[in-house]
C-alpha cells in the first residue's frame, strides 16, 4: 500500500469555521481520516503530535499575536507544502477589514484599556503570507465542501490545488439567477473569487464578497456603477473593505481618487 501523506491542520485567529467545515464533510470524514495520516488536528482529536514533520500543513486563521507568528514559522519549517486554508489565512478576513488605517492600537485600548497581557503580545490581524512562504491557497469563508475536498485530494496526490479564477457570477449564472447587480443591488459577485457555488445570490441576497477579491476585480467600474444606481461612495467602499482584507488595501487609494 502507498504511504499515506501526513497532514497537520492548524488553527490561528478566526472563527474555526474552516476546520469545522472539514468536520462537516460527514459523509467523507471516514475517508479523510483513512486516506490521510493526520498528525495534528486539535479541533477534532487529542493525540496530536506537535513536532511531527508533515507533507501538508493546512493553516487556518490570521496571525495577530507574537506567539502565533512564532508558531507559524515553526509549522513552515515542519511542512513540505503549506496551504493557506480559508479567508482568514488568505487575506485576513473580517478582522483585517480596517488594516492599514493606523487606528488599531486605539481600538485595542478602547476594548481592553491598559491591561498588559501575559499570554501573548497582540497585534493587528494579518494573513499568513505576510510571515511565511505559502505554497497554495484555498479561499473561502469557509471553503465549500466540493472545492475543499477537491483541493484535499489534489494535495494528497501531490498536485497543486486548482485555484478558481472565475468570479462568483459564473456559478451564479450556472444556477440561473436573476442578476441582483443588474437590478440595482449592491452585489459584489463580480469582484469575488468563485467556488462557493453562489449560495447568497441564489437566495436573493447580494454577495458580500466573503471569499475575497479575485485577481481581475474591477473595483473602480463597480464603484461607478453602484454610484449611478444610487449608493453612496463611502458605503460602497466600506462594503468592499469588509471582506477585502489585506488585498484591498493597495486598491483603496485608487478608489478614493475616483470619488
Amino acid at each position: 500500500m502507498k504511504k499515506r501523506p501526513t497532514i497537520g491542520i492548524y488553527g490561528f485567529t478566526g472563527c474555526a469555521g474552516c476546520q469545522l467545515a472539514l468536520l462537516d464533510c460527514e459523509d467523507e470524514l471516514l475517508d479523510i481520516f483513512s486516506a490521510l495520516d493526520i498528525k495534528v488536528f486539535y479541533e477534532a482529536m487529542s493525540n496530536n503530535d506537535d513536532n511531527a514533520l508533515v507533507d501538508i500543513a493546512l493553516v487556518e486563521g490570521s496571525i495577530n499575536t507574537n506567539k502565533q507568528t512564532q508558531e507559524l514559522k515553526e509549522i513552515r519549517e515542519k511542512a513540505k507544502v503549506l496551504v493557506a486554508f480559508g479567508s482568514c489565512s488568505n487575506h485576513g478576513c473580517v478582522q483585517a477589514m480596517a488594516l492599514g488605517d493606523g487606528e488599531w492600537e486605539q481600538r485595542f485600548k478602547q476594548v481592553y484599556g491598559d491591561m498588559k497581557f501575559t499570554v501573548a503580545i497582540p497585534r493587528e490581524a494579518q494573513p499568513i503570507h505576510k510571515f511565511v512562504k505559502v505554497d497554495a491557497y484555498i479561499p473561502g469563508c469557509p471553503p465549500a465542501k466540493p472545492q475543499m475536498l477537491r483541493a484535499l485530494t489534489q494535495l494528497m496526490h501531490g498536485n497543486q490545488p486548482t485555484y478558481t479564477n472565475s468570479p462568483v457570477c459564473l456559478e451564479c449564472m450556472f444556477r440561473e439567477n436573476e442578476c441582483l447587480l443588474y437590478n440595482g443591488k449592491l452585489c459584489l459577485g463580480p469582484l469575488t473569487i468563485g467556488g462557493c457555488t453562489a449560495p447568497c445570490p441564489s437566495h436573493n441576497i447580494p454577495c458580500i464578497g466573503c471569499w475575497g477579491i479575485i485577481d481581475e476585480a474591477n473595483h473602480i467600474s463597480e464603484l461607478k456603477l453602484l454610484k449611478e444606481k444610487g449608493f453612496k461612495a463611502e458605503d460602497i467602499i466600506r462594503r468592499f473593505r469588509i471582506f477585502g482584507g489585506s488585498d484591498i488595501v493597495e486598491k483603496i487609494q485608487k478608489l478614493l481618487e475616483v470619488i
Partner: protein
Amino acid sequence: MRALKLAKKDEKKLFSVLEKFGEVWSPMPKGKRFSYEKIEDPEDLVLHEECIRTILPVKKFLMPPDFNILSFTPQKFTINNEEIPFKIVVSVPACEIHAVNILTKFYTTDYVDNYYMKRREKLIIIGKSGLPDEHCFCHKTNTSIVEEGYDLFFFDLGDYYLVWVGSEIGDDIVRKGSDIFDENLPKDVSQKFVEFRKQKNKSYKNNPDMEGVTDLMELMYDAEFWDEFGDKCLSCGQCTMACPTCTCFNIIDDLELNKELGHRRRYWDSCQFKDYSLVAGQHNFRGSKAERLKLWYTHKLKAFIGHFGSPSCVGCGRCIITCPVDINVPTVVEKLKS
C-alpha cells in the same frame, strides 16, 4: 412542410401528449425573468404571447454548464455513458432555434463533439413565435424566421395556433395528439398568418443598425471606445454564459477521495476571464479586458462568417439585460457606427 391547427381551448391537453415523449420543460418565472424548468403540472405549460427570454438559453440542455465527460483510473479512461433522457422544451423563440442550429453546425464541423450530439438527438424543440419586447432585435440579425431545427413550431393566430411540423418526431407528436391537432386548416389561415407577421414586424422597438458591422469590426479595431468598454467591464462573464451561441469550456480533473478513480469535468468558461488566453511562461495573449471584449464581439459580429456564412449573434437581446455595465451588441454597434 406539414401544418396543422391546435385550438386554444385544447392548449392544456398538449402536456399530456408531450409527456409521452419525455420530460417536459417550459419557461417558468424566476423573479422578473424566466428559466426553462422541468414541469409536472399541465397548468405550467404556457405558450406566452410574447417571446420568452430565459436567463440561460437552450444551450444549457445541449452542453450543461458543468458535467463529467470521462471517468478514469491510472490505467484507463472511459467515457461517461450516462443515459440522457428525451427532453421537450416548449416555447422556444425562433432566434434561439437559430442559435441551436449554429451550435450544431459548430459542434459537427471538423470534429464531431459526441457529448453535444448525444444531447441534441434527445432534445425535442417546440418553437413558438411571439411578439418582440423592447430588447429583441432578431429582425436585424435575420433570425426572426426559422426554417429548420425545430420539431414543432407554433404561431398564435387568435383563437388557434398554427403548428408547423419540422421533423419526424414532430410528426409522431401530432399523430399521438390527433385528438387536438387538426389537419384541416381554417380558410383564413394565410391571411391571419400574414397579419401576424406584419404585426410582429411592426412591434420591434430595438433597432440597432447592423448594416456593415462586420467590416466595421475590422476598421474600428484600434478605436478608443474599446478601451472605454474595457475599463467598464467587470469580467463577470455573464454575457458569455447568457449568450446562446457562446460555447467555450474548460476541462479539469477531479479525483475521488481515497479511491483510484477520477472524473474529467467540463464546464463553461468565459473569454472574459483573465486566464482565458494565458499560456506557459505567464504570457497572456489577451491580458487586457479591452482585448477580451474585442474577441467576444469579433465572434458575435464577424468571425463566424468565415466558417458558417453568417455572424453568430442571433439578436435575442440577452446581453442587453445581462451585462450590468451596459456593454452589449447594440451599444457596441452604436460605437462602431459613431
